[in-house]
């Protein structure tokens, strides 16, 4: 019997002529994107979002490149600058659903200032940050989220910098939604992304991911399955975690859940009011 190749249910969301992707075996990004696309599909199915209105924006890095695999209006722009680009898109056409996707280096490192001000403004975009604890595309340099003491190619004597707790930082500002999931809990990625798509204001989702090829090598977890299982063991779900629990701590566990859920007027609401 001939082998029948069926299309994947998510193919409609992808520029399938670009597959295979450049991602390494064991990379968490495929799981993350798949979950996001399922969340988006639900919104499209229920008629609350038109696929034509969705714009994906990525900066530079492995995670940012998700923006050019999706079969939507999309932009792959400068390192760290996806958020301001997205702000321009949203303000030019508030009818669009604007999604920023990137790694922790892109979003919280070089783009950190833009992240703060997007959250402060409660600007109506969604940012999904994949945290893999390392600069992967450039070859394993230290990231803002690299745990203390870890050896990377630019911290060969051990990372002397405590990591940035991005969830706590964004929560301290005016964001309407701050949640954290993990690629070991794709159902939460899907659920949070679905929820964020239906909200206004600045919505931030951190997705803790695996990078066996680059980060795993530094911490002795190069085998993708082993790395996945180690992360899975450490992920703790709490429905409404406190900000004190937000710090990513490999030993004590990584708390996922919805940290902030608010419905304050978004930037666009103020802008419209201000124009009256």
């Amino acid at each position, binding site marked *: 019997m001939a082998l029948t190749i069926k299309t994947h249910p998510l193919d409609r969301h992808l*520029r399938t002529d*670009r597959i295979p992707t450049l991602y390494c075996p064991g990379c968490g990004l495929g799981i993350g994107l798949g979950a996001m696309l399922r969340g988006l599909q639900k919104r499209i199915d229920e008629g609350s979002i038109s*696929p*034509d*209105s969705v*714009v994906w*924006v990525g900066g*530079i890095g492995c995670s940012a490149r998700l923006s*050019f695999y999706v*079969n*939507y*209006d*999309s*932009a*792959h*722009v*400068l390192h760290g*600058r996806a*958020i*301001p*680009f*997205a*702000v*321009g*898109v*949203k*303000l*030019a*056409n508030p*009818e*669009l659903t604007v999604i920023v996707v990137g790694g922790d280096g892109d979003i919280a490192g070089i783009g950190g*200032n*833009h992240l*703060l*001000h997007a959250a402060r403004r409660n600007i109506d975009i969604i940012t999904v940050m994949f945290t893999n604890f390392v600069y992967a595309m450039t070859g394993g340099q230290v990231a803002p989220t690299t745990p203390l003491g870890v050896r990377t190619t630019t911290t060969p004597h051990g990372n002397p910098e405590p990591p940035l707790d991005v969830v706590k930082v964004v929560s301290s500002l005016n964001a309407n939604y701050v949640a954290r999931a993990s690629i070991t809990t794709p159902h939460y990625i899907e659920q949070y992304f679905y929820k964020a798509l239906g909200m206004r204001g600045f919505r931030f989702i951190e997705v803790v991911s695996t990078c066996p090829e680059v980060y795993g090598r530094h911490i002795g977890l190069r085998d993708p399955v082993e790395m996945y299982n180690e992360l899975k063991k450490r992920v703790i779900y709490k429905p409404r975690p406190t900000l004190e629990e937000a710090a990513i701590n490999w030993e004590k566990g990584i708390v996922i859940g919805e940290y902030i859920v608010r419905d304050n007027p978004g930037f666009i609401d103020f*802008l419209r009011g*201000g*124009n009256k």
Partner: protein
Amino acid sequence: MRKVFASGNIAVAEAAMTAGLKFYAGYPITPSSDLMEYLAEELPRRGGVVIQMEDEIASINAIIGASNAGVKSMTATSGPGLSLMAEGIGLAVITETPIVIAHVMRAGPSTGVPTKTTQSDIFMVRWLTHGDYIIPSFAPWSVQEAFDLTIKAFNTSEKLRTPVFILSDAILAHVWEPLVVKEPGEVEIIERKTPRSKEGYMPYLPDEDLVPPMAPFGKGYKVLVESLVHDEKGYYAPNNEKYKQLVTRLNAKITRNIDWLFEYEGFFLDDADIVLVAYGSVARTVFALAKQLRSSGLRTGLFRPKTLWPLHEKVIRDRIKGRKIIVVENNIGKLALDVERILCDREVYKAPVLNLESPTLKEVKEAVTQWL
């Protein structure tokens, strides 16, 4: 048509709104700030948005995003602000995003003298960022011309899908002069080409004029804006053939339009024995000097490029006749290098003046007469 009394910065802002500006993002920096302040007051009344971003980097990237969402967008800055925008302007080049940047020159390097003028940044707008590109730049000398060339800047950016500079300075920004504000309908406004069909749309597939039709976000074209070297679909293409093709086209779409792009004004050129070359606000003083020298019996002409980049080398060769060419500018002598290169068979002299104010006639005369 309205007759008003306005500054150079206001003229740029008014022209931008006539051209159809709908989005301005900027960060305050002297001497450009009051341009943004004026737009913050006026643009929302005309259906547009003004936002003060967290820095210049955010500003330039926001206007690129807005332009890709289908609206005309601009920013304005000075000195250090443009340094910060360099990478973003390169993004506009490679993604073929129409934007206008008003660069109001002040003294540098670094923080320099924020409130004072120079013409030091003419090479900065030419070779701002990494890679091979040509960014059209216009250098007005009056408030009225600041208006007219800003219209041209928007038309150029839309027609050629490119970033464009308006190169003003602290003098022109804040001098007040009579201005005729033209309304839409009284002046030609060019809009970017949009694709004829969604079928087979490729964001970087050019027409015969080398410019690809541009689809906005939100209309179902599945646009891909790509900062990497890319093929017609916008897919990363790290190979020599596509790189060469893309970079050649990005430059050729500008140079092919040089007859349309290049504007200049000539005074007393036909019988000139000595030709002074000057641009921007300094050209006003040089014009006075040319007249003075002429009345004292020296056959002196003035050639004033309004388009600084790209220069029209043939026009310069054809129009600048005479034994001696003297380039007067408020910097260490920059345009002079190109004039010298283009007119290599003639005597070309640098007459730099370095003055934080508008150079006086006496000062310009001293700089010039050393070569007479």
